[in-house]
């Protein structure tokens, strides 16, 4: 059996070096085709009429004028009379027309009558005692769960645990099924305990979602030498992918669909489209070359992906393109849940953490959402947490790069930093003292903390929190820790060597801009011993072997492992065919730089092309898989740690915060391409500065709509907002031999906490909530002055 293990440092030529991204030339020249760029013959353009109210019932719809309009090819009612709308911007009617202006004109003449209902878009602190205990579920609550795409398993367990308020008729069950309820959910509803008395109670927007106690927090707080209390929070933000969500769908015959879609999950799309379209998954072909950003928001075809296919069918199967407009992208295509908490932490005189108490709340839209993993990274021995989920009408939440972790980092690291300040301890010393609470990552964090301190010049820059007497520029530094899993997902790939020496590698993965294509080619090239450009890589099509969705930093571990196994098997199969010609045994052969030779005797050699001609008439195709227990070792692993430090400058007169420097020290096991790995960290720091200083999805309490659904007022950081960035990847002994681990999420977790801590160090007071806008900074300074 071939040795699948990653080669050690002395035997690596490409892995771990800085290789330029292979698809960069296509991207910089405008040749790279994204879903938005696809232009199919006879393509129609779709537009969507959206509900202007955050909570409403549709009373009537009149599409007659649109249907009569020249150029309009199909009108499709997405949600009809009687349907309940739970957020502004939800889809009501779609139109397909010969061109975009015509489709827009058609949308304007559709008349919809709504019955407006009361809405809630605030995620402010829940009123005392206002939170409802979890109890029997109403039909509305079940609708909300489906709307919010709650996983079926979670719905079933809640139905079984809490029961329901009314027994649903078979007709009602059918409606739920049409709304996406799985058979398991329907079965759970048929057998659920019914509590009709609970129906008379008004459903609350505030739901107790988690309560847990570890150890004896009361006793620990009583014994603590220092206790610090504070308020911390991180708002709703949007994904704001530059390529909006959307697809182009066409029916190649009565029951075969071809879809180009902007997705992080090419392999997973057919299965999600099959059921609503009532065709087998095998009849759905999905293709995507490039994706213009996803960040966790593009795993499903979404309702609009389904109705794009439906309206195409109504238009005789012609290709229909529906890409979201920018306002819709920001309003309905995903938000990162907010999280706020009143936190109390206690430590002994030497800084040892002993107690944590948090009362947290936040919203993830109609479904409420869960508690971030707090306290984060540090397992404080005595803890009590209570969380209230706010169910409101802000629109659905989605996974946002490192789901729940940036929130957890802010709530935890800011509270601990305030405690360090109260202890009058340097945070490096304070966190360093408590690293034993990080368990298996302790040594990694300790090494990273030392490196980060040096790169930031922390000792020179840190100072105890000072009083700012009267304005002026103030500087400070802050730090944060983070962790992530990142084990490789399931991935299949086919590697084919043709008798003419050409090589192709196919897998239905996707490159989100993380460098997936480049890394696959590095692994294949290193393993086969031929140059990267001698291998044709094809990804992004469901006609290739399936590979997992790109979420949770699972792609690199998955695709590099399947590629490694396929390439090792293919290389050895080729050696078996070639060995007789060189009068040797297969295990005596090696291939370096496209030349096959007998180990230690380079005079007995063949070029790659000559060697492949020994294959005979048929190409050689090998399937590589991850995971694959029959082909050890495990090539991927899980669990990384990172430390980040920020230096901030605050203008105490205007409240403007500027980040002056950031340092990221990160491990991710064996690095495949150092260049794109570093880019992930640079990008994460920049995205982190953006959400720390500028980003917030601002909801208008009176209209229930997002106030800043455009890129002028939903502010992303620009080039001039970005300071000196230092990235240090932990590589070498202790890291490389762990195998390949994902990197996309971890470095985006810490910036919020690190920057908030730097600002607190600079101005001597905590600005409780991100983003750290001038008004919030000035309010904190004013409060401090008045205190």
């Amino acid at each position, binding site marked *: 059996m071939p040795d699948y293990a990653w080669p050690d440092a002395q035997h690596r030529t490409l892995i771990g070096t800085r290789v330029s991204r292979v698809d960069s030339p296509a991207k910089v020249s405008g040749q790279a085709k994204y879903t938005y*760029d696809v232009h199919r013959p006879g393509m129609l353009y779709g537009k969507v009429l959206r509900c202007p109210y955050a909570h409403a019932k549709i009373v009537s719809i009149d599409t007659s004028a649109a249907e009569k309009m020249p150029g309009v090819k199909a009108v499709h009612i997405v949600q009809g009379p009687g349907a309940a709308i739970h957020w502004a911007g939800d889809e009501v009617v779609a139109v397909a027309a010969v061109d975009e202006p015509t489709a827009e004109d058609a949308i304007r003449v559709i008349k919809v009558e709504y019955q407006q209902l009361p809405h809630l878009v605030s995620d402010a602190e829940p009123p005392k005692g206002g939170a409802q205990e979890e109890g029997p579920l109403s039909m509305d609550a079940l609708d909300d769960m489906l709307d919010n795409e709650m996983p079926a398993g979670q719905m079933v367990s809640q139905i079984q645990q809490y029961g329901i308020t009314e027994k649903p008729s078979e007709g009602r069950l059918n409606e739920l099924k049409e709304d996406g309820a799985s058979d398991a959910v329907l079965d759970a509803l048929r057998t659920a305990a019914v509590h009709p008395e609970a129906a008379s109670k008004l459903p609350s927007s505030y739901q107790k979602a988690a309560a847990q106690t570890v150890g004896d927090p009361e006793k620990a707080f009583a014994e603590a030498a220092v206790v610090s209390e504070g308020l911390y929070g991180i708002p709703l933000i949007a994904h704001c992918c530059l390529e909006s969500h959307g697809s182009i769908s066409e029916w190649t015959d009565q029951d075969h669909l071809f879809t180009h879609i902007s997705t992080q999950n090419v392999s997973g799309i057919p299965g999600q489209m099959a059921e609503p379209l009532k065709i087998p998954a095998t009849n759905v072909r999905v293709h995507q070359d490039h994706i213009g950003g996803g960040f966790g928001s593009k795993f499903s075809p979404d309702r609009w992906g389904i109705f794009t296919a439906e309206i195409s069918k109504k238009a005789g199967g012609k290709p229909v393109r529906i890409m979201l407009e920018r306002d819709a992208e920001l309003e309905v295509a995903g938000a990162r849940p907010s999280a706020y908490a009143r936190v109390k932490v206690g430590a002994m005189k030497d800084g040892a953490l002993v107690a944590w108490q948090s009362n947290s709340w936040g919203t993830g839209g109609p479904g409420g959402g869960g508690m971030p993993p707090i306290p984060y990274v540090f397992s404080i021995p005595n803890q009590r947490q209570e969380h209230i989920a706010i169910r409101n009408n802000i629109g659905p939440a989605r996974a946002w790069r490192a789901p729940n972790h940036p929130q957890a980092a802010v709530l935890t690291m800011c509270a601990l930093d305030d405690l360090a300040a109260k202890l009058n301890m340097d945070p490096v010393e304070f966190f360093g003292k408590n690293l034993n609470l990080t368990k298996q990552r302790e040594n990694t964090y300790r090494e990273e903390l030392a490196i980060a301190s040096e790169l930031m010049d922390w000792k020179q820059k840190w100072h105890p929190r000072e009083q700012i007497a009267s304005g002026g520029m103030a500087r400070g530094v802050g730090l944060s820790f983070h962790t992530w899993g990142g084990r490789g997902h399931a991935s299949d790939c086919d590697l084919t060597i043709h008798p003419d020496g050409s090589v192709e590698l196919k897998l239905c993965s996707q490159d*989100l801009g993380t460098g997936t294509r480049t890394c696959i080619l590095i692994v294949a090239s290193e393993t086969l011993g031929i140059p990267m450009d001698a291998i044709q890589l094809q990804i992004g099509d469901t006609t290739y072997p399936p590979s997992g969705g790109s979420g949770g930093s699972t792609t690199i571990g998955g695709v590099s492992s399947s590629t490694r196994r396929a390439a090792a098997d293919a290389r050895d199969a080729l050696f078996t065919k070639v060995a007789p010609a060189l009068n040797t045994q297969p295990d005596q052969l090696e291939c370096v730089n496209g030349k096959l030779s007998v180990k230690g005797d380079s005079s007995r050699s063949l070029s790659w092309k000559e060697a492949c001609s020994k294959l005979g008439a048929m190409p050689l195709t090998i399937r590589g898989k991850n995971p694959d227990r029959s082909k050890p070792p495990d090539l991927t692993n899980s669990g990384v740690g990172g430390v980040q430090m920020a230096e901030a400058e605050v203008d105490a007169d205007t409240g403007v915060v500027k980040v002056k420097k950031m340092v990221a020290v990160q491990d991710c096991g064996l690095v495949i391409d150092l260049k794109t790995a570093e880019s992930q960290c640079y990008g994460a720091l920049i995205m982190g500065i953006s959400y720390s200083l500028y980003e917030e999805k601002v909801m208008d309490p009176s209209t229930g709509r997002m106030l800043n659904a455009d890129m002028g007022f939903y502010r992303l950081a620009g080039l*001039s907002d970005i300071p000196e960035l230092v990235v240090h990847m932990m590589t070498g002994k202790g890291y490389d031999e762990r195998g390949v681990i994902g990197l996309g999420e971890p470095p985006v977790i810490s910036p919020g906490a690190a920057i908030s801590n730097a600002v607190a160090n600079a101005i001597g007071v905590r600005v409780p909530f991100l983003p750290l806008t001038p008004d919030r900074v000035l309010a904190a300074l004013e409060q401090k002055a008045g205190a």
Partner: protein
Amino acid sequence: MREDDENQKDPNDSPEGPGVSRREFLKISGISVAVPLVAGPRVIKAAGQEVRVYGPGKVPMEFTINGKNYKANLEPRITLLDALRDQFELTGAKRVCDRAECGACTVLLDNKPVYACAMLAIEAQHKAITTVESLMRDGKLHPIQQAFVDNDASQCGFCTPGFVVACKALLDKYPHPTPEDIRRGLSGNLCRCGTYAGIRKAIAQVAQKGA
């Protein structure tokens, strides 16, 4: 077109010229006339001058894009960006914000960077339109494109063509830009993945080697 001086007529805006300035358009749009669905302009009097009125139906238009001539019948409300992307399949310029906020649609108009989403196609006639597709010559990347590759200045790449064009315009004007030149020259372009560090290095590389 110059809009700072009402009496200064742009040479392209002669009676034989293609269009109506935005200022004039605003004046005209207040005039109520029945508008037939015909191609070709009608001449009306507005603000004491004869001006040509196009649309709202499709009218024939001609463009010079990357040195080549293109013709199409388009409604006057079509933006330059949509004409490039949907009519001529030049999809390098991207539609992101569609309201002059993000720069992903940046193209050059007579060598000046403009947001193609914020300009009507009809206004861009008879001007030299340069898109990202033309920067590569004989299969060789332009120095700024090569610098983007070398410094990994793209991730998802959706903002990249706009940045490449904006950087080219910046470096054409300031071959050795100061940080302030860079700030001003690129403040109209946004990236979501966070490629600014690479873009800054790419500009430094070209400034050092020369384009």
